[in-house]
């Protein structure tokens, strides 16, 4: 038994329900001074909910949070901050149009102070950024920062408040491998300075690398607490997923002819998001092409281009070898391009429409479902029922509003909607973001099945592990530029990370010229 006097944070039997879903079921957890506890679990296991309760953003139905031996009042972020708890959210809580300094000093002084102590603020931030190796331009607008820099601002924000306990929610989800290394260096400095850390992740190698102890959550329950030294990745994977969740096997692909080609295409920049810069890309039959990169580097432009939502400013598009003129969304649908959009809530579905209506969104005007201006709702409903059965969409029925479905089931309906037509080109943009492991495996196996029957699949993801596992060919996108193609297994994660950070592109240009 280790000394319990050193416990800085104790969660006691925290329970939180959202409607019927029990997000946290009597979870207890403790954190000692100077250690890193990893909170491991799949998407939807309840990690973020638990930390939001700790940080006062949700109120627990029962259970208490104790910091340095004192119980925190529930639902009060200020109390958590004052007690020394800082949180770096997965979705950054920064005001884009304000400067780094403004974001950090917000709320750190009494509201009704007559003036800001500008030079003192600057001095304190500078000291912290030196001590913890967090370099960032204080006067820069947050909107102009990279994702890695924004995360540094988030960490600075917490450290500025002199927190003693730092909670990081999926901090590496959006980072390149190199940025992750920098983050870990910062966290080790923090530990050396006497902080304690809760590190939330579902990535096993990171958990093994940074943590002292691991707490594993599954379906809202705490299933295990182990010392990192006494365990390994395989054991943790089993604890995290339970048994029965098996990732699909991947056979070797046999690529066929070019189905969709983009040649030297450029698109205009949209705000601070770069457009494509002379990008060429071939999608071949029976092959999954993975597009790796940190979000906001032109993935959206490329996805929109394939989906027909934007047209090239220069360059050409070829479909089955024929040049395409007047490329449009309607054209893309008619040519049988299956589109799985990045944001299933905003662009993939219409939240208050029924499953039936959502199922026929892209084909409502085909002869199957309407003629001379009249809808055939019976056929549409039968189509929806068919998808629900085949793709195992768990729902009360085809007339349910789709907003009531979980993310995984929503995605299954979208999959069914586009794959039922046996498309030969599939655009899968972040297809498993936010899904639990079962749904992830299901989506992946459907994409592999599409590939194996001869479809060309373009997989866009921020998750390098997913890209490396599924893709037969990998391209990296950075600043709107596309790397050359790398065959499966020819590049290590850190090499790809270098490309993601923008290295290698310039040499490529010199070689070409």
């Amino acid at each position: 038994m280790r000394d319990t006097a050193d416990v800085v944070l104790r969660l006691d039997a925290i329970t939180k329900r959202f409607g019927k879903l029990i997000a946290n079921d009597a979870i207890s957890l403790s954190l000692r001074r100077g250690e890193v506890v990893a909170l491991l679990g799949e998407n939807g296991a309840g990690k973020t909910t638990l930390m939001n309760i700790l940080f006062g953003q949700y109120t627990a139905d029962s259970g208490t949070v104790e910091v340095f031996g004192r119980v925190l009042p529930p639902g009060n972020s200020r109390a958590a901050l004052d007690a020394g708890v800082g949180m770096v959210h997965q979705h950054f809580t920064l005001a884009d149009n304000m400067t780094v300094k403004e974001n950090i000093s917000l709320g750190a002084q009494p509201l009704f102070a007559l003036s800001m102590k500008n030079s003192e603020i600057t001095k304190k931030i500078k000291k912290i950024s030196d001590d913890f190796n967090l370099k960032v331009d204080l006067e820069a607008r947050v909107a102009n920062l990279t994702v890695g820099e924004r995360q540094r601002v988030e960490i600075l924000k917490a450290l500025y408040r002199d927190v003693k306990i730092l909670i990081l929610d999926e901090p590496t989800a959006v980072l390149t491998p190199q940025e992750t290394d920098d983050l870990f260096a910062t966290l080790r400095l923090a530990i050396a300075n006497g902080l304690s850390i809760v590190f939330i992740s579902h990535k096993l190698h990171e958990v093994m690398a940074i943590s002292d102890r691991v707490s594993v959550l599954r379906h809202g329950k705490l299933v295990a607490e182990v010392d990192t030294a006494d365990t390994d990745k395989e054991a943790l994977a089993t604890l995290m997923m339970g048994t029965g969740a098996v990732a699909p096997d991947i056979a070797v692909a046999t690529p066929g002819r070019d189905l969709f080609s983009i040649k030297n295409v450029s698109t205009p920049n949209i705000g601070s998001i770069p457009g494509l810069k002379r990008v060429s890309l071939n999608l071949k039959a029976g092959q999954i092409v993975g597009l790796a990169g940190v979000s906001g580097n032109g993935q959206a432009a490329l996805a929109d281009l394939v989906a027909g939502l934007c047209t090239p400013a220069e360059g050409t598009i070829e479909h089955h070898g024929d040049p395409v003129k007047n490329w449009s969304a309607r054209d893309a649908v008619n040519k049988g391009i299956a589109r799985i959009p990045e944001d299933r809530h905003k662009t993939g579905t219409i939240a208050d429409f029924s499953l039936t209506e959502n199922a026929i969104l892209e084909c409502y005007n085909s002869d199957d479902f309407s003629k001379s201006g009249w809808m055939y709702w019976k056929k549409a409903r039968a189509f929806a029922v068919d998808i629900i059965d085949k793709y195992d969409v768990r729902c009360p029925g085809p007339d349910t509003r789709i907003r009531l479905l979980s993310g995984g089931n929503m995605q299954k309906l979208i999959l069914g909607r586009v794959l039922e037509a046996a498309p030969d080109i599939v655009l899968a943009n972040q297809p498993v973001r936010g899904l639990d492991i079962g749904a992830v495996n299901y989506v992946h196996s459907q994409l592999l099945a599409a590939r194996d029957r001869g479809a060309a699949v373009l997989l866009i993801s921020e998750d390098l592990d997913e890209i490396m596992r599924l893709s037969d060919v990998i391209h990296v996108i950075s600043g709107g530029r596309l790397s050359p193609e790398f065959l499966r297994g020819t590049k290590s994660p850190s090499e790809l990370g270098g490309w993601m950070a923008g290295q290698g592109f310039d040499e490529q240009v010199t070689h070409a010229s």
Partner: protein
Amino acid sequence: MEIVDILISASFWAAVIRIATPLILATMGELICERAGVLNLGIEGIMVAGAFAGWMAVYSGTGLWMGVAVAMVVGMLFGLLHAALTVPFGLSQHVVGLGVTLLATSSTYFAYRLALPQVTSPPKIAAFQAYEIPILSDIPVLGQALFSQTPFTYLAFALVAATGIMLYRTPLGLAVRAAGESPAAVAAQGLSVTGIRMGAVIVGSGFMAMGGAFLTMSAFDSFFFEMVNGRGWVAIALVVFGSWKPGKALLGAVLFAGFDALQIRVQQTSLGADIPYQIFLMTPYILSIVALILVSRRAQVPAALMIPFNKGER
């Protein structure tokens, strides 16, 4: 040539500042609300209520400054109503705002009828008198325009400076701006988005009511129906024109007032004899629309304007 004569006359510029004052007050009020993320369409009605309340208070025997305070408090009460519905309850800011305008306007007219059931023409009060600031008012043209106004006008200009300092130089202003840009960031720093937004709407509404009160207590000395006459809506456009910045908004208010003062005078020149007067009445609005198009395309809208914030929502 007659227009040149108008433009160099001190009385013209004095009129510009006088016409601008209620717009300046109302625009600052709206700007504070919108900077915190709340569009306050109650502005037109709140100005009507403020115009009546200030005037009525003075008519009932209070001092002039007490009248201004009464107007402000009445405005803040309507602001409280607006804020309570739009911030904690997160109702549509458009619907609530228009509702507050209708409620404030009609209840004002109702109160007027209750208070003065018999009168056909409303009574006059002893309004604010011009106060010539020594030395400064002796500057040619400019002195007459800027430094021979009523104290109410000086107060309006002081409030612009105060608003600017508050927004950009104090922790409170930082929090207000952040509430309009990213309420999630405000909440994550342990501040109350609800408190900040409600406070901004209430104070902003107080400013709007003062803008209305200027009409009955300084520009004129009596209360008429329809006297606010769309100034609230103009103020909303001026906030956009000013890119949500107090200084630029002040400039916009002066510019609009300039067009307005000019058209009144041009009507009386030889041009006015040939052209229907309605054309002149239109010009400030048309020129403002043109200016709005030219200036505000690059305007930086508060990112969370009109987006309700609910803590703990999934």
